[in-house]
Structure formats: structure tokens, C-alpha cells
């Protein structure tokens, strides 16, 4: 059985939670909360902490089992089967959409003439290779890439500082607190994507007492690190573009990447940054691919290369269905808000509640 260390758990978790959230997030929160949007980012991610802790505490009770197996124990066979099917469906669908995002990002920003299928193909190739190499290699992959992604992000933000327009952040809270709460609701699904991944990876986590404490601390760290970075991303975009422009731009950070100029000569390094973003996307899509295969294995007992190939084909199919950029962005938002958020919120809360109640009843 493969295992990942608690450190790898933190890095892998952060990479999955981060994914490519930094690309659309500014546009999403600014649309709802205007120039105060940045304030809702960190609270939105923090939702992940209680849920993450719930999942870990379930792991503590049922070591070496993933959440579907735990559902099986707690909720009975049939309900858990239904949950499993929904879970697989969501993960598969969203994973495919993410793959589509890779194509959309590349095609709309630097390589408009290349057929979009090539980007899907490159992406799925990497994801498939990762899945084939196993969770350990996946964890190591994120261990190497995540720091690179952070460096790229910080560089992108740092190099954009000269473009800041003065006073774009002011006035603070001119519209009151309500828009921020709405924006908070828009961010929460990002945290839930991470929680759903957590639900699957449980089997590979260490379960000794000391490690469990570290895992819990890991959830805190992950959420705060990613929340903070994303907040910076939103902040810099509002500071540079102003709220009006930030909303208009589909992937604001890419535009920022285009504006980066190093001593007035080297400009347009976004194609280099895109390499890092591709890595982030691969990790996230890979995570969803992994969860789908785990789900299939748990619910239907299907595993092996054949089924993996099948999942890959479905991913490609979904991606090809959304070759229209605006459709894709729309669909990702819909799945986030109306599938992932309610599903994860209800499922995990129920599981945790029942296991608590049962535990209390026994003792």
C-alpha cells in the first residue's frame, strides 16, 4: 500500500486547493463585492478548516478507509452507493471541465491558432501518466511544482507592483458588509473541492496519533496559505485594474502576466508563467482523476488500466463539449455553486454528525 507523509499531505493539499483558483477568483469576488472583494477570499477558504477537521476526525475513527467506505458503514449500503455515484459524477465532470480550462487558457492567451484538442491531449497525457505512476509520485510531483507555482505567483504579483494605480482600494466597505458575504459564498466552493479530494485520499494518509495531529495542523496551514495567496492575487488585480476592469477580465492574472515588464525590455513573460499555471491545473485535474478512480474502485470495484483509460476518455469528452470559452467558465461556476458546495457541505456534515451521535450513544 502506498503512503504519503504528512508533509506531502500539506503540499499536495495546498496544490489541489490552490489549483487554478487564482485565475478566475478576482473576477468572481469583485463581481459580487466590488473593490472589497478581496476581504471575502480568506474567510471563504477558511470554510475548509472545519470540514477538513471533520474529515480527519472521521479518519481517526475509521482508519485506512475513504469517506465512501465510511459512508457505507454509517449510512448503509444503498445510500452510500447513491452518494458514491453522485461523487464520481461530480468529480469526473469537474475534472473534465478543468481539462477544458487548460485548453481555454492557452488558446485565449498565447496560442490562438493551435487546435484546442492538442492542449487537452497534452493535459490528459500528463494527468494519465501521473495517475499511472501512483499517488506517491503524484505527491512528489506536487512537492516540486507547488513551490514553483508559488514563486511564479509571487513574481507575477511582485513584478506588477509598478503598475499599481493609486488609491484603487479605497474606499473600504463603502457598500457595507453584505456583498462580502455573497462573495464569501462564491469562494466557499473552492474549499469544498479540496474537501472532496480529501475524502478520497484518506486511505493513503498515516494514522498514528502523532501524525493525525500533524494532519490537522496541515489542514490549517493549507487553508491559510492558499487563502492568503489568493487574497494577494485579488488585491493586486483590484489595485492595478480597478474593480470595473477586474470584473471584465476572464483570467485577470494572465493579463497581469502580459503587463509585466522587467526594466522596460523583457515583456510578455506570461508564456513562461503559463508553464507554472499548467502545472497547477495538472495537479488539480490529476487530483480529480485520482478521486474518480478511487470512487470507481470503492463503489463498483472497478480498477485497472482499462477503467483508467475510460475515465481519461470521459475527461476528454467533457472537455471537448465545452470548447466555447464563455460556456466553460459559466459551467465551472455552476458546478461549483450548485453541485460541489451543497453536496460536500451536506454529505460530510451528515457523516460527521451521525458518527458523533453514534459514538456518543455507544459510550
Amino acid at each position, binding site marked *: 500500500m502506498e*503512503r504519503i507523509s504528512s508533509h506531502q499531505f500539506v503540499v499536495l493539499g495546498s496544490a489541489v486547493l490552490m489549483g487554478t483558483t487564482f485565475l478566475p477568483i478576482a473576477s468572481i469576488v469583485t463581481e459580487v463585492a466590488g473593490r472589497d472583494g478581496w476581504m471575502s477570499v480568506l474567510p471563504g477558504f477558511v470554510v475548509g478548516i472545519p470540514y477538513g477537521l471533520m474529515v480527519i476526525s472521521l479518519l481517526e475513527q475509521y482508519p485506512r478507509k475513504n469517506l465512501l467506505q465510511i459512508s457505507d458503514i454509517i449510512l448503509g449500503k444503498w445510500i452510500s452507493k447513491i452518494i458514491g455515484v453522485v461523487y464520481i459524477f461530480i468529480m469526473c465532470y469537474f475534472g473534465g471541465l478543468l481539462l477544458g480550462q487548460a485548453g481555454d487558457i492557452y488558446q485565449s492567451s498565447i496560442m490562438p491558432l493551435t487546435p484546442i484538442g*492538442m492542449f487537452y491531449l497534452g493535459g490528459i497525457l500528463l494527468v494519465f*501518466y501521473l495517475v499511472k505512476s501512483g499517488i506517491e509520485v503524484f505527491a512528489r*510531483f506536487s512537492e516540486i511544482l507547488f513551490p514553483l507555482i508559488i514563486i511564479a505567483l509571487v513574481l507575477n504579483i511582485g513584478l506588477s507592483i509598478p503598475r499599481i494605480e493609486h488609491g484603487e482600494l479605497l474606499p473600504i466597505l463603502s457598500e457595507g458588509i453584505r456583498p462580502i458575504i455573497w462573495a464569501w459564498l462564491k469562494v466557499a466552493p473552492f474549499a469544498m473541492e479540496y474537501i472532496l479530494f480529501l475524502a478520497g485520499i484518506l486511505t493513503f494518509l498515516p494514522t498514528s496519533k502523532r501524525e493525525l495531529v500533524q494532519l490537522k495542523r496541515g489542514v490549517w496551514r493549507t487553508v491559510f496559505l492558499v487563502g492568503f495567496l489568493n487574497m494577494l492575487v485579488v488585491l493586486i488585480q483590484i489595485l492595478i485594474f480597478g474593480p470595473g476592469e477586474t470584473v471584465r477580465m476572464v483570467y485577470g492574472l494572465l493579463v497581469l502576466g502580459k503587463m509585466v515588464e522587467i526594466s522596460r525590455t523583457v515583456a510578455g513573460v506570461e*508564456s513562461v508563467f503559463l508553464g507554472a499555471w*499548467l502545472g497547477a491545473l495538472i495537479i488539480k485535474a490529476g487530483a480529480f482523476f485520482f478521486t474518480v478512480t478511487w470512487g470507481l474502485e470503492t463503489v463498483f470495484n472497478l480498477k485497472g488500466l482499462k477503467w483508467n483509460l475510460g475515465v481519461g476518455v470521459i475527461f476528454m469528452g467533457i472537455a471537448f463539449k465545452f470548447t466555447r470559452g464563455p460556456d466553460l467558465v459559466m459551467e465551472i461556476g455552476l458546478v461549483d455553486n450548485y453541485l460541489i458546495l451543497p453536496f460536500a457541505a451536506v454529505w460530510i456534515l451528515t457523516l460527521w454528525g451521525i458518527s458523533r451521535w453514534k459514538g456518543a450513544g455507544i459510550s
Partner: protein
Amino acid sequence: MGSWMKMIKELTIRPKGERQIRKSPAYSFDEDLKKPLSGQTVKEILSKSSDVVFREFFLQGKDRIPCMLAAVDGLVDKNLLDQFILTPLMVDLARHPELTQVTLSNVVDKTLQSLLPGLEIKKISKMREAVDAILSGDSVIFFGNLTEAIVVGARGWANRGVAEPITESIVKGPREGFSETLRINTSLLRRKIKHPSLRIISLKLGDMTNTDLVITYIEKIASPDIVSEVLKRLSKIKMDAMLGNGYIEEMIEDNPYSPFPQISFTERPDVLAGKLLEGKVGIIVDGTPIVLVVPAILTQFLNVNEDYYQRAMVAILSRFVRYVGAFMAIVAPSVYIAVTTFHQEIIPTDLLMSISAGRQGVPFPALLEALTMTVVLEILQEAGLRLPKPIGQTIGIVGALIIGEAAVTAGLVSPLMVIIIGLTAVASYAVPTFDLSLAVRLIRFPLMILAGVLGFFGVTVGLYVILIHLLGLRSFGVPYTSPIAPLRIRALLQDTFVRAPWWALKRRPQLMDVEDPRPNGKG
């Protein structure tokens, strides 16, 4: 740290299939070797080879015992033989007090105990031992038709002596290198580590060549798992010939299809000692100055032992240069292709103008231009490699200067392309290990093609595929990319991209399961 140990243990190192190459046919002398030991049979087996000499004489004790000394001419030190074997037995013995007691039945023991001086001397009673001993350079004395014989070690053959290694030259540090003789090599190692825990285990490999090799490691430091894995893999090798390290290397590698070297080698005793003290296992093969060291990790191929002899700051700088060089050697041509054919926006306008002007009239697309130039570069390297030194230089001048200059003037390639290729070549020489620089040269081509087809997307995908491949590699159970992933903070900070000053190297770098993490363990 605990989880790491667990991981190592839980990982079953991939079982190696029985790799049998060229199984030896049943030679007729296999039968002979099963016969009881006797001088006469040995003579029958070996007399067809003119280099084996048989010297027959009598030992005059209580009985007159017919004796025969067999040795390979050229492998034995004749002076030693004369002085310490033949002379004592044939001449000096006349005055020996115990001589009168020597009979045919006790001649072997008496000779061993009191008649023969000399250090390496032992009794044998098997045919195979006798033949092996003779062929390995020892001398064997047979007594009458007894089934026991005495092996006297008086080896002495032409050898190169201890010379400065060619592949790992160094500015500041010891100059001695291994040579082709196993014993000299082990003695060089022993001189570095004078500690009882240094283990040197002998093996023989190769059905025909009967090559000696030793496995060396330090008890309590090297992981027993790795040692036993090495022994297991070596014992599975079945082949006739074992003429050098390369034979073993390929047979015990984890993933022979990977372009990356998974076993490191060295020609220097100081390096070997240092590696052993890190917990690695060395394999010294007789007949080659190259010592294999396992397990190997990627970053160590970019570090050289001179780093440890220089001051820390200097070492950090030169390591940094090497890493940058390696990276450039891999990506420089592909980045050039991607940038000039897909992502021109990245080029500053002025540079864009001059690149564009430089490429006016060049008939080939950038991809083809770069591929051709790289192939030419490879040819030049290959051509210069095996030529005698003076001619090799001519190749360099003709190839690089004349062809390059002429190609630019003729408008076949753009000047910038020549610069890029030149840069790549120089950068790949910054990779200190030959094996790794071969891998780098190999990777370059697919990356260039990907760059020519898909621009930076292709390059990124290519690099990620290589990365995933590297992450999946293991060398004797140790992940190839450690200590970066899985992260071992201490090893990473101490001795990977940087070398911490000696006083900061408090513990051994824990790349693997080290049993005794004692401070300042490195040699």
C-alpha cells in the same frame, strides 16, 4: 522521519526478473574440475596453454617427494617465486632441522607450518580451487599424487600503478585514483577508512572470466536492506563475461529504459570513501578503475567532490553554475525555437528586429535549423571524443570555427542560432558527470521537436513528463529525486543545491535509511 523509514521498508523493491544472458554451454573441463585434485590432472587441463608453466622438482625429506609448481607466466612475480618458494624448498631445506621428519603423508602440513615463508599461503583440496588459483595468478605446489596442494600468493604483473584519474580531475584535493587491480583499489580505500566497520565482501562473477569483485560498505551506516538488495541483484547475474563495470551496471539498474544514470561511478578513493560514509554501497570490479556506487540520486550527479575541498561559499557558487548549466543545456535550443516561432512577444522589440534581420534569407525553419545544428554538434563531439588529443583539437577548430563561421556567412544558419548551439554545448560541459550529460543530450531532441510543434506548451509538457519520469525512478529503493521530493529538509539545505560549511554538517544527509546518524560523518 519515521514515516520515511516505514515507507522504505514497506516498499518492496521491484523484483528483478532472472536476467540470463548467454548461458555458458557445458564445457568439457567442467567434468575435469569435478575430478579429485592431482597435479597430473591439472597439467592435463592447463598444459595446452603456453603461458602456464610447470616446474617439477623433488623435495628431499625422509622421503623423496616429487613436487610440481604450476603458475601462469607473467602473472607471478618470478623473483618472489625463486626467492621464497623454490630456493627454500630446493636449496635451503638441506639444513632445515625438521626436514628429516617430512614424509609424503605430512608434507603439506609441514610445508605450511615451517618450510615456506610468505604471507599468502594456504592449503587447498579441490580441483576448481587449484585451477582458479593458478589462473588468477597464484602459484600452486602439488606434492606427488596427493589430493592436497598449497597455494602461494606471489602475484606480480604489469599494472598501471596509482595514477591521477582522467575522468574526475580536480584542482584542489588528492590526486590518486583507482587502477585496474582489485587489491590495489581495496588498499586505497582501506587507507582512507581505517575503521573495523568497513566491510569488504568478495564475490566472483562471469562463468568464463571469473572476475573478482568486492562489495564494500560500512556496517552500521549503510542500510542492510540496500546491502542485501545489492547482493541479491548481483547474485542473479548469470553471464559468461564480466569485463567491466558497464556489464554490472546495466544488469542491476532499476529501470534500464531510463536515459538517466541510476548508478554513480567514481575513480577516486576519496570520493568512494565519502560516499560509503554517507551510507552507500560500493562495487569494485577487478580489471577496471571505475567503482560503482549505489544507490544514486539525481542531484549527486551534479555535485563533485571538489565542492568538499573548496570553501563553502565558493562551492555554493560553482554548484549553482552547474545547475544553471544543466538546465540551459536541456532547454536552451527548445526555448529558442519556441520563442522565435510561437512566442515572439517575449522578445524585446529591438532584439526581435535583430533576430529577424539575422534570419533573413535563412532557408530553413527554426526547428530544422536547430535540429541540424544540434546533430552537427553531436557529430563533432562524437568525432572528437575518441581521437588522439592533438587531432581532437583540430576537429574542434575545423568543426566549430570554420564550419560555423562559413555556415553563417553563407546564410545557411542565423548567427543567433550558432550562439545558442554554442551556449548549449558549453553548458552541457558544465554537467560534471558524463552519464548525466549523455542523458541531457538525449532529452534535448524530443524537447526541441515539441517546442517546434507546440511552443512553450510543448516544452512544458515535455519537461513535466521528464519530471514525472524522474519522480517515479528509484535507485535501490531510494527515490531518485530525494531529497527534493520526498523532501528531506536537512539533506536539501546541507548538501544539495548548496553545500553548508563543514561545521554545519552536523548529521549525515539522510537520503536513505541510515542506521547511525552520527555527526560529522563525511570523509
